[in-house]
């Protein structure tokens, strides 16, 4: 089992604990990866506001790199997953546009034929690796923990580009993985909602209200932590929770935001320094006490 690895900027930047915990999990599962070191940033939908063609070209170039290696892409980030999927969907359905982009990247020797699949680690674990196989690597049951799932917008919308028509069950994978570690996935109505990260630097007041609503309501429903496959959601929900909660609810940050691979690593009994729970802004000790 081997993938072209696209860790994304944030796993290499603001959330190093996502990268280290993912690496530890992949090693334990014996999933091979080959990093696409020449690949550029997906643009996260932000670059696309100003220069959509540049965004799509960089992404098709990434898809072509993986195709050349005859591998599908593994992502660790909902946003990378979504934006790469959107570009892939767009060119697969518009041969003229694909030809235009291929013309731009041919100088570097790339030509995308449209055969690469882009899969977040969450999808890979459920669809390719299988939850039963995954469970065989667990040494701890996290049965004392209740997690609120939080997917991140780009993992669930637009559903057409994400292949939900063929695989509607993708809307439920995070709960399945949470349950596979023996924890309880709480029925969290905000699971497909927005964390507010995209407007953090544009309209912080709105962004903080969103952080407060999501984390506050998950806490009210009895969650010990929130689990997300998206490092951008993590950055906002973890990093700004204190300010968001005191401004909007008059209480304190009390909901740890766990990266999905960290939760899996806990069940695998991987050493806590590799999991990086100490790097979170919201204290995660309560979680470790319940493991």
């Amino acid at each position, binding site marked *: 089992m081997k993938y072209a690895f696209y860790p994304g*900027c944030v796993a290499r930047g603001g959330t190093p604990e996502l990268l280290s915990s993912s690496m530890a999990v992949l090693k334990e599962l014996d999933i091979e990866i080959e990093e696409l070191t020449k690949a*550029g940033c997906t*643009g996260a939908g932000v*670059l696309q506001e*100003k220069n959509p063609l540049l965004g799509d070209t960089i992404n098709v170039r990434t898809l072509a790199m993986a195709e050349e290696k005859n591998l599908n892409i593994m992502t660790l980030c909902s946003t990378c997953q979504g934006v790469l999927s959107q570009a892939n969907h767009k060119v697969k359905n518009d041969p003229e546009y694909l030809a235009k982009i291929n013309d731009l990247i041919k100088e570097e020797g790339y030509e995308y034929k449209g055969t690469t699949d882009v899969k977040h680690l969450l999808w890979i674990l459920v669809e390719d690796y299988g939850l039963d196989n995954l469970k065989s690597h667990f040494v701890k049951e996290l049965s004392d923990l209740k997690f609120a799932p939080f997917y991140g917008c780009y993992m669930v919308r*637009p559903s057409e580009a994400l292949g939900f028509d063929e695989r509607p069950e993708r809307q439920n994978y995070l709960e399945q993985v949470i349950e596979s570690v023996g924890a309880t996935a709480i029925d969290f109505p905000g699971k497909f*909602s927005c964390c507010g990260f995209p407007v953090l630097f*544009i*309209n912080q007041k709105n962004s903080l209200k969103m952080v407060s609503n999501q984390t506050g309501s998950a806490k009210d429903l009895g969650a010990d932590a929130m689990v997300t496959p998206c490092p951008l959601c993590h950055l906002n929900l973890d990093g700004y929770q204190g300010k968001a909660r005191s401004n909007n609810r008059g209480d304190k940050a009390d909901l740890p935001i766990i990266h999905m691979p960290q939760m899996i690593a806990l069940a695998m009994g991987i050493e806590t320094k590799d999991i990086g729970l100490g790097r979170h802004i919201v204290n995660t000790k309560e979680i470790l006490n319940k493991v």
Partner: protein
Amino acid sequence: MKVSIDVKRFDPEKLNENNWVQNYKMDIHPSSTVLDALIHIREEIDGTLGLRCACRASICGSCGMRVDGKAKLVCKTRIEELVDEGETLLVEPMGNQPVIKDLIVDISAFFAKMTQVSPFLQPDELPEQGEFIASNESMEKLLTEMNCIMCGLCVSDCTILEVDNTFIGPAALAKASRFVYDPRDDQTEERLNFLNDEQGGIWDCTRCMQCVEVCPKGVSPMDRIMDLRETAIEIGAKKTHGYDHTNSFEKSVTAHGRLDESRLAFESAGIFNIPRLLDLIPVGLRALIKGKLPPIFPHKAEDNKKIKELAKKIKEME
């Protein structure tokens, strides 16, 4: 087919417990829509249930509701596609709008926002004789926007309207784009400057794509908002944090092939905006202590010059 439907009820005339969930059970043909079931309830089981509907053919836009948490036109939504025999479906009124009774919401704010964007053509002068002629090609570009039936589903599930009712919102912004891109309109710049406003304008959209997902007519409001952002930048309407954000993003990706998160935070705050920069310090310090501050010297993609060359090539093409 045996189905069970939970309906969120609200009766403003009841003094106590005016908000409740009521369950209805029925045997209904498998091809029935959610609207068929609701009408069945109102006519056969409980005449007090309030709902709004008209055409039953997904063209009038009256029957927007939330079904299992997602805004839908209930006349277009088949029960068998959502639940199996014996399962329960939850029907609630649309979100982000005050409820009048049961499943009926007050849509006056929706239309007030439509009015806000001057949804009519404003040409500088009238043609000397006859009608305005617009080319087929120019109108084809507007087909998505023109499909809007003003059902309000996008407004119901907009994640920004949930926290800020000053946001013009997806429906009215999509409507605005329909006039910005109409060749017969001469108020393009004025419209864009108005929509570019920092409070409630195009940059307040969080790009969550809820509106794209729930729109029953393929209007894709968020994509229309993205078009407006691109055009606002083109006409030089740049004095927004939103512009600073996307501009910084482009510079960083072009320079390094990757995102420079620290630079993005500083440049989006505005490098001369002292209060906003000071605001970054506590978060930055906490991140630093926890060892998760983005690298000061950005990580670069290998061979990142190639991305710079691509950007240059694309610029030349324009």
